[in-house]
């Protein structure tokens, strides 16, 4: 009885921590993974891979390991199980866990289909019903986009102007094309060098394949909807991609100075809310996070981004 209570407790603990194998091995791997991800201060790519790995392991654990372990468990306890309808909380929880992993997997597949369907059908202006888009971007901006895209080795995205005085810059995937949107407020309050830096940041998102990474992270979170830890890991991946995009952008424009000064200007007017898209859309946004609880923020705050860029300058 004592033994059962202990295992029941460990099981509950591991459900809350994230993975839910009946033994602590997966909890251990998660902790080691998180520590590794945090210690990878320089390599945001490495951090992304480790964090995505944890998410994948957490889901596979819910599915495969429970199957395997319950099999072993059943073999060991075959006599008890076959003896009749004896109620065992341990095996019931395992079954629940397996079901949750399966439901999560199906939900993730549905969400994935929905997102790809939606982003292939819906236009940029429909995705942001609260924003007005002007199609004609100035030639200078288009040329910058073209130049930086060829430098990064990506297909040049479309450029849209947003009819708003609030400084905004974001990239969306709509109509099977990538579009970079810049607001009039951004163009009129930053100088040319800083505007180039913002464009470089957005193009870096395309270069680093951030839309794919984000989609994977989001789907993993949906699949792991019952695991609290995934709600922290997904935004952490988003933040790592922002830092990586900053670093790539600095490489594209030959140094982080212009990006630093652009971010310091944007820091004073936080305007993320104005650009929140409708429903589930793939958007990379140049702007700071402002949630009460920073660990849940998908955008790192601008001050941290600036200091990270300054560190990079010193290296």
């Amino acid at each position, binding site marked *: 009885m004592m033994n059962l209570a202990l295992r029941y407790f460990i099981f509950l603990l591991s459900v809350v921590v994230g993975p839910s194998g009946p033994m602590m091995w997966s909890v251990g791997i998660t902790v080691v993974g998180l520590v590794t991800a945090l210690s990878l201060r320089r390599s945001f790519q490495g951090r992304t891979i480790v964090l995505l790995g944890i998410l994948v392991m957490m889901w596979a654990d819910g599915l495969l390991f429970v199957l395997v372990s319950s099999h072993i468990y059943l073999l060991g306890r075959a006599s008890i199980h076959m003896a009749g309808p004896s109620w065992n909380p341990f095996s019931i929880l395992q079954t629940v866990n397996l079901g949750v992993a399966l439901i999560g997997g199906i939900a993730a597949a549905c969400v994935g289909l929905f997102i790809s369907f939606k982003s292939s059908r819906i236009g940029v202006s429909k995705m942001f019903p609260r924003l007005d888009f*002007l199609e*004609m971007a*100035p030639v*200078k901006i288009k040329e910058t986009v073209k130049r930086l895209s060829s430098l990064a080795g990506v297909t040049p995205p479309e450029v849209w*102007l947003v*009819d*708003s*005085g*609030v*400084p905004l810059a974001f990239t969306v995937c709509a109509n099977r094309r990538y579009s970079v949107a810049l607001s*009039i*407020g951004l*163009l*009129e*309050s*930053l100088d040319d060098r800083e505007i180039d830096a913002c464009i470089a940041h957005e193009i870096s998102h395309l270069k680093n394949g951030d839309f794919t990474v984000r989609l994977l992270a989001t789907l993993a979170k949906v699949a792991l909807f019952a695991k609290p830890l995934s709600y922290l890991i997904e935004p952490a991946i988003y933040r790592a991609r922002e830092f990586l995009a900053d670093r790539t952008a600095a490489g594209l424009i030959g140094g982080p100075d212009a990006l630093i000064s652009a971010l310091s*200007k*944007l820091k*004073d*007017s936080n*305007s993320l809310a104005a650009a929140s898209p409708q429903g589930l859309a793939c958007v990379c946004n140049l702007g700071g996070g402002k949630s009460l609880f920073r660990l849940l923020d998908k955008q790192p705050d601008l001050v941290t981004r600036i200091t990270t860029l300054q560190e990079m300058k010193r290296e």
Partner: protein
Amino acid sequence: MLGDLEAIVLRQLWETKGPISVKDFQAIVSERRLVAVTTVATTLDRLYRKGLVSRELVREGGPHYLYKARMTEGEFKYAVVDGVMGALLESFNDVTVAYLDERIGTKRPEDVRVLSKYLNRLRRKGNQ
């Protein structure tokens, strides 16, 4: 009705009169108070959404807006008073009278004189 920064920006806009770009405007405002150009842009956008300023998009020299106030200071004050007094007169009743009695009845005899002057004028209008 207006935030702190919005009031400052609107007042400055009345002073400068003609249409003005965000950059020029920030240069003027920052002589008195340290504000980032992005803050000015955001504040002007907010005033635009409130319908207090108008703007036009200019494409030459990089796309930018030229902002100007939609009403003069007098018109704005009239609109504010109209908003408050209109609501007050709409539901003119004992509460309004009691409020006036409490606020200015004994403490500010000067205001009572002004009010009775207005009342007399209104009375004359009513008799015509």
